[in-house]
């Protein structure tokens, strides 16, 4: 029992980290709101499904197209919506949230609900870890999660583009004076974040069916992980994902699946009340509260 909780808690935490990475890249590291994140995640799943089942593309092609289409949507969202309200934080939040809501409810209206909306697993089968069966897909998830988290850390600390992302979050104008085109970088950041959402969707979604409601859950989970971990910290994202992931797993086994989602909500509340900048956050420690 303990072993199952440990192993599946680990997998659950990796899923959380994977899902939160894109949101963290956009909102946490570059300081651009993208509250259409959950919608992008779900959209990538549906696009991949349509390409697979209606257009009959091979899986890898569908996956690649889905990722690029979502990244393109992110870029378009920035160019046509976010750019015009940049700097007005509340307008950014409301506008992107509205776009996400429109996408999600459009899918609901078009009737994309049911059990047939599933993505195929990468490879079938399962292995034994100790006395617990773990299927291959979950191992893929762990592998991708570790690779992406590591990649994101290296990207934001050792590449020009990644450093530019962190630069515009700290100060728009100073970064402009250092030759960073803040608007363009912010746009790229939204596109990257959306692409990561799509990637996470392709890897994570084969576990179950694609549903519209997952869009809201993903957004809340990603927000919870980013806020608890602290904005702008990749380490924080991983630590927070493990904290919330295990907390969810334990609540799940102790009190039932209904309580699982409440964990992230409560985590957001507690951390915002106690330490709004998050466990590892350094940015804006003073500005967000009076």
């Amino acid at each position: 029992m303990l072993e199952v909780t440990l192993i599946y808690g680990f997998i659950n935490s990796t899923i959380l980290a994977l899902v939160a990475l894109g949101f963290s890249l956009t909102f946490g590291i570059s300081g651009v709101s993208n509250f259409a994140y959950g919608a992008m995640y779900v959209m990538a799943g549906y696009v991949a499904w349509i390409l697979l089942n209606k257009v009959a593309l091979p899986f890898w092609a569908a996956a690649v197209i889905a990722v690029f289409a979502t990244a393109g949507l992110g870029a378009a969202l920035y160019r046509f919506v976010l750019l015009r309200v940049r700097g007005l934080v509340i307008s950014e939040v409301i506008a992107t949230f509205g776009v996400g809501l429109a996408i999600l409810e459009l899918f609901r209206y078009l009737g994309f609900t049911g059990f047939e909306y599933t993505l195929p697993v990468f490879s079938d089968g399962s292995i034994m870890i100790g006395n617990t069966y773990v299927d291959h897909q979950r191992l893929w998830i762990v592998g991708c999660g570790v690779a992406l988290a590591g990649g994101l850390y290296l990207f934001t600390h050792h590449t020009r583009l990644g450093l530019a992302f962190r630069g515009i979050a700290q100060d728009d104008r100073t970064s402009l004076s250092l030759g960073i085109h803040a608007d363009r970088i912010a746009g790229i950041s939204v596109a990257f974040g959306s692409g990561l959402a799509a990637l996470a969707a392709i890897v994570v979604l084969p576990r179950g069916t694609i549903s519209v409601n997952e869009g809201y859950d993903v957004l809340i989970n990603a927000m919870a992980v980013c806020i608890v971990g602290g904005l702008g910290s990749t380490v924080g994202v991983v630590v927070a994902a493990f904290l919330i992931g295990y907390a969810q797993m334990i609540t799940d086994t102790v009190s039932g699946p209904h309580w699982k989602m409440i964990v992230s909500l409560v985590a957001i509340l507690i951390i915002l009340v106690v330490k709004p900048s998050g466990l590892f956050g350094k940015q804006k420690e003073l500005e967000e509260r009076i």
Partner: protein
Amino acid sequence: MSKRRRERIDRGIKARSGDIFALTSYREMLYVAVPPLLPVIGLIVLPLLLPTYWQKVLISTAIFALLAMSWDFLACVGMISLGQALFFGLGAYCAGIMDHYWGFPIWLSIPLGTVAGSALATVVLLPVLRLRGVYFSMVTLVLPLMFERIIEATRVFGGTEGLTGLKSFPNHWVELYLLSAITLGVLFGLRRLMTTDFGLVLKAIRDNDRSVMSGGINIYAVKAQALFLGGCIGAFCGAYMTHVYMFVGMPAFALDYSILPLAAAVVGGMGTFAGSLMGAFILVPLSEALRGVGGLRTVLYSLSLVVFIVALPEGIFHYMKRKYHQFERWVEVEQ
């Protein structure tokens, strides 16, 4: 090639009737009196004219207008809420519980539900009053979802089925005119409130909270009062709708009650309350007229929200107010 710019000048009648309080003609009196009278007449006459189905639409329109005004009021204090459903849901459940478990009559459960729901929401939000801007918004976005999940998980108050068979209004005229009166009262009450000293403090908190603190005012107390006031409006909507539907359940915390008021306030124009009313009276009947869209309703609202925030952030009301008071003309730019 000479350059031109657009110049805005107050209309003569605005200058005559605005500052000098000696109205000398019916034209000037009407100029001052007609705009505020429009909603009054509309809300009194409309229930008489409309067929039964559209009376129901009027009810939900007025409810969303009230929620939008309460959103607008909180926004005036710098608290941008993404979860008016919190107030609505708590008010609805408080009224429902008083009716179902304690058997309170309707004229007791609505006011008590309003106050209790709002007080509860204020207490829940007290710890996050220190947060500003987007952090406060995130908490308000999360809370209604959390309440919904908690009710689903604990199965209290009827769980997913909710409480049914609650008392209804004695007749639908009481139902309609009570709501009309409250809507008008809230509209003019809030407009008046914002011009008092208390309103000035509220606006100052939005603009620069630290300078208000340095003026020796306890801004947390003021914010809590504002939250309670705004919450009362939202909770009243919930308590009222509970008795209209004769049902209260998890849909009371639905996203609709958060997003539609927000859309109405943004479309109508923030900061004036009349704009929120106008936004609701445009959006809700519009979506009702496009009955076929059904599920597309939320899509419509969120898209109008995005379009207005990007293209016309001032909102329709401010735009019309400007046209009413001022005229525009092109003038040559002096070189």
